[in-house]
């Protein structure tokens, strides 16, 4: 799958392709349906460490450690997991390291499960409050360029960057 080129496959493949093009060696995740393709590709890739987490904030600490060891990674999670990460984002503010996150949204469009809405409604605001830059994506053709932009700023500026995959993109439940 290493030969796939962003933009030639579906947006689900684009996520993985862009991460790989940016030299990501660690894909750490709590699964979300929107990430199922990227997780499958990462798990099958011998050059990528795919790490399943018990809770999302583990991933922020893991990526800090990988960067101390000179390597790049990305955290994949659902919007509900952003809430679990809030205090751990202090690690980024105090240490500064490339922190790239891809968030599958729930509760932002055509959501059938009201329990997803409290966190989904404030996911982007919560990230912004913790000094994370965000880009919300609702169109398939925007996934690759916006993720490329976020990765560029994370890896070249030690920024915390999150791309939010909206439910209009993913498909409502």
């Amino acid at each position, binding site marked *: 799958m290493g030969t796939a080129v962003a933009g030639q496959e579906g947006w689900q493949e684009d996520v993985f392709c862009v991460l790989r093009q940016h030299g990501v*060696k660690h894909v750490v995740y709590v699964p979300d349906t929107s990430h199922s393709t990227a997780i499958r590709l990462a798990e099958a890739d011998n050059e990528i460490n795919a*790490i399943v987490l018990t809770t999302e*904030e583990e991933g922020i600490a893991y990526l800090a450690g*990988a*960067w*101390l060891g000179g390597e790049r990674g990305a955290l994949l999670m659902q919007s509900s997991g952003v809430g679990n990460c809030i205090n751990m984002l202090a690690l980024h503010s*105090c240490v500064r390291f490339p922190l790239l996150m891809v968030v599958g949204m729930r509760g932002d469009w055509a959501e059938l499960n009201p329990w997803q809405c409290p966190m989904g409604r404030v996911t982007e605001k919560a990230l912004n409050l913790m000094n994370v830059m965000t880009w919300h994506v609702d169109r398939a053709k925007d996934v690759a360029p916006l993720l490329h932009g976020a990765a560029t700023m994370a890896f070249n500026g030690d920024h915390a960057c999150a791309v939010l995959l909206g439910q209009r993109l993913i498909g409502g439940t």
Partner: protein
Amino acid sequence: MREVIQYGTLDRREAVARLLAGRKKLLVVGGIGWASFDVMAAGDHDNNYYLWGAMGSAAMIGLGLATARPDHSVLVLTGDGDMLMSFGALATIAVRNPANLTVAVLDNGHFGQTGWQESHTARGLALEQVAKVCGFSWSVKITNLAGVDDLRDRLYSRCGVKFSVIKIAAKAFPRVPPPRDGSYIKSRFRSALGFQPI
């Protein structure tokens, strides 16, 4: 049967100094609170990474570091409170089983920084058994200096991920604060491994 002695007797400063004596390319993550002070008291080192916050992060930082640098041994030294906050990390680390990683918990059974409230370990929880059940290749409770010496020798082995609980005395020690500037410590640490600033 519940053990009679839940609190340890080891002097944390002596135990950590002994564990780090003669260190060879060892990368050390010091957890929030006393653990970082202990690592600093044993001698500041470019291969030390200290935490002042982000409670619950030490073990996972160790996993990320150990995975990225399989050529180095990595030691996470942290307190029972920090380890309890990242309970799930024991599962995440165990399923990865990095042979170059050791997690050592300095266990005084208390939240020493916040008024010495008893933690779960003082109330009977044996973290070394939790780690064993999760699948750590080697997991022991250490109650004396001979055990610390044994652990020191094992830090450099490559026979699976290792875990230990070091039962230390529940008492305050002088603060030996490492630098608070996390960005500086990060850059120093990376530079020592040969990595340039971004």
